[in-house]
């Protein structure tokens, strides 16, 4: 009795510590549900002495009187630990709430566990006879046998009625809480799984339509409403490259043979480049040669900095040489454009979806589109036109945010340069970027700017709270958890109409203004 006032402290500690011991012993009390011949023990069974040893230390630390502690460990733990070993070997261990992580023999185990649980709950207390519980049986919080509900060991004073009642109530609350949480999480998981299945199903059925119906009748069907709608949903990865190729087209009439020619030319240059650069610097070489070599050097540098997290394009990676080849061939094919940073990202995305020569053909044709050509030639005045057109639709769609940006003189070039140069492949998660590319291939350059506005719309509320530097930081490093559903619903909400003028018309009128402005103010031809 002298030790009693301290006992609860030590007792709680011991309970937590020896929970497994207790539960295992409980399980043994229902041997008909024990799994027979379980081959995978849950965890290496600890030496029988160990828990008792630890518990003894803990009890000692908790400050229980020595005589009590000795008595306690001797009489309580030695008994329990004797039971521990065989039981642990035949069944997985338990956590207070929820199942232990899945194991190899899980399907069998979980069923047994459930039976066992039912048997136990049936024995321990009568669950509310609700049919909801039955329905959600798979969400039942398993292994919720907290000691709180049990009577104390015989050698300790019994609980009072009130205490027992309170413990029962607390226990029920804990169970209810855990159950609620588990049900919620399970629902969430199920929803995600359902969505994923649905998505996969959609992709599979869409793929059939693309392969069997659309691709064989490409020219006739590409502009139909049905195809356009299907297109918006995202292209199945297996036909993505093909559809991109078809949509981008081959105005330049590049053949795989032509690619080979430019590739071999590029290879010659790399060879001579590595020879000359080892001898001497480019002192007596012409400026153009120096530029070309700098460009080759830059490609080398940038390849390792293209999607570094994928470890595909880095030196030694499977697509390193491919990316090098496509970019090198392009600089030989279009020396007037050369290599410009941002290209490596575009080429990389194409390589991920197309065969080498097809990737090159798509790359060259894509970069030949007016918008891409303006950007990759770094034609500043043209770029400003694109930014101005973007701002027209920005103001139209998001007037509040537009004014907010204006108040900080935050111009669209700050974020659009990165987005447009890399076609969002650097700033959005890759799968999402590919979906943007899908519709970009359908709608053309307009969609690039619409996507930009969709991003601004998605984060409008956050951006309205930010000042210049935070907006700039945010937009040049977008959150990684951005989802395609949210982004695409925001993009869909962006109207590319400005007082009945579409993007192309707005852009054309801006170009016209420019020409008239040139006539009036600066007759000298622009460089």
């Amino acid at each position, binding site marked *: 009795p002298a030790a009693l006032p301290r006992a609860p402290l030590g007792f709680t500690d011991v309970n937590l510590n020896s929970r497994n011991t207790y539960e295992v012993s409980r399980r043994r009390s229902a041997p008909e549900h024990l799994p027979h011949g379980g081959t995978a023990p849950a965890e290496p069974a600890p030496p029988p002495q160990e828990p008792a040893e630890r518990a003894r230390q803990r009890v000692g630390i908790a400050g229980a009187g020595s005589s009590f502690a000795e008595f306690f460990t001797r009489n309580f733990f030695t008994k329990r630990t004797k039971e521990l070993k065989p039981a642990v070997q035949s069944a997985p261990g338990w956590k207070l709430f929820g199942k232990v992580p899945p194991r190899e023999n899980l399907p069998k185990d979980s069923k047994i566990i459930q039976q066992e649980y039912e048997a136990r709950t049936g024995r321990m207390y009568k669950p509310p006879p609700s049919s909801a519980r039955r329905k959600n049986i798979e969400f039942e919080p398993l292994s919720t046998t907290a000691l709180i509900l049990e009577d104390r060991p015989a050698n300790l004073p019994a609980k009072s009625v009130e205490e027992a009642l309170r413990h029962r109530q607390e226990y029920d609350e804990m169970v209810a809480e855990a159950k609620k949480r588990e049900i919620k999480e399970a629902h969430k998981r199920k929803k995600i799984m359902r969505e994923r299945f649905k998505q996969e199903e959609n992709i599979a059925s869409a793929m059939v339509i693309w392969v069997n119906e659309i691709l064989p009748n490409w020219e006739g069907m590409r502009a139909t409403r049905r195809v356009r709608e299907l297109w918006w949903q995202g292209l199945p990865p297996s036909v993505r490259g093909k559809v991109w190729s078809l949509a981008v087209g081959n105005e330049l009439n590049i053949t795989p043979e032509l690619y080979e020619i430019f590739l071999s030319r590029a290879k010659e240059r790399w060879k001579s480049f590595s020879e000359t650069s080892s001898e001497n610097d480019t002192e007596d070489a012409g400026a153009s040669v120096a530029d070309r070599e700098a460009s080759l050097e*830059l490609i080398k540098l940038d390849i*390792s900095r293209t999607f570094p997290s994928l470890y595909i394009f880095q030196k030694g990676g499977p697509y390193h040489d491919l990316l090098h080849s496509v970019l090198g061939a392009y600089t030989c094919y279009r020396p007037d454009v050369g290599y410009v*940073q941002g290209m490596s*990202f575009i080429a990389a995305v194409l390589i991920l979806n197309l065969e080498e020569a097809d990737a090159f053909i798509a790359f060259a044709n894509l970069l030949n589109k007016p918008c891409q050509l303006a950007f990759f030639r*770094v034609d500043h005045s043209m770029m400003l036109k694109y930014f101005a057109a973007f701002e027209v639709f920005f103001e139209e769609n998001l007037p509040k945010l537009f004014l907010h940006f204006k108040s900080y003189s935050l111009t669209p070039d700050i974020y659009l340069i990165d987005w447009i*140069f890399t076609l969002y492949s650097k700033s959005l998660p890759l799968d999402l970027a590919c979906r943007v590319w899908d519709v970009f291939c359908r709608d053309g350059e307009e969609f690039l700017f619409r996507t930009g506005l969709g991003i601004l719309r998605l984060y409008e509320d956050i951006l309205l709270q930010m000042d210049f530097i935070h907006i700039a*930081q945010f937009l*040049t490093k977008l959150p990684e958890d951005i989802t395609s559903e949210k982004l695409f619903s925001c993009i869909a909400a962006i109207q590319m109409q400005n007082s009945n003028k579409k993007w192309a018309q707005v852009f054309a009128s801006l170009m016209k203004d420019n020409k008239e402005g040139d006539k009036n103010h600066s007759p000298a031809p622009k460089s």
Partner: protein
Amino acid sequence: MGSAEEDYNFVFKVVLIGESGVGKTNLLSRFTRNEFNHDSRTTIGVEFSTRTILVGDAVVKAQIWDTAGLERYRAITSAYYRGAVGALVVFDITKHQTYDVVDRWLKELYDHAEASIVVMLVGNKTDLAQAREVPMEEAKMFADNNGLLFVETSALDSTNVEEAFETILKEIFYKVQKQKQRSSQSNTVSLASENPASTAPAQAERRPCCVAL
């Protein structure tokens, strides 16, 4: 602790320029987040970072613009120099070519930025000392002759990164102070890119700073 302590809070816009691949982005991430990334992505356009440091009793917020190093981009990035009070011109000590073009970067800078801008020449990648192509004395002399601050750093092993940014921010700070003393009004600091007192967010940011330390 005078009545003018409002003016001790500054936002300094600093630009990072120099050839592609010299380590600008990693210098910045080392300074602002103490991070280094062996495979950082190519910077396209411009990226941003901030860090607040204490200069004397003043809380100085460095707003650093990390620009793309590609020459072709210069037409567009030159707009980013506007309002900058400091610039780090970075080269790679293991690549002479990146040092050779420092002249061009400086010209670019002085064409678009204010003449009073504080410029620091930074030779990065000292961790690769065995591959050094640019002797420190040479770069130092060049910096002295052109009125630039000079430091050699390693973003990889952190050598002098903190010092580089602190030095330039201090230098800017003293320059601003001198200018302020010269002009009677306190608000005509042409060097400062923004007046932090004028905007609510900046004010809110200032409060939690530990000026008392």
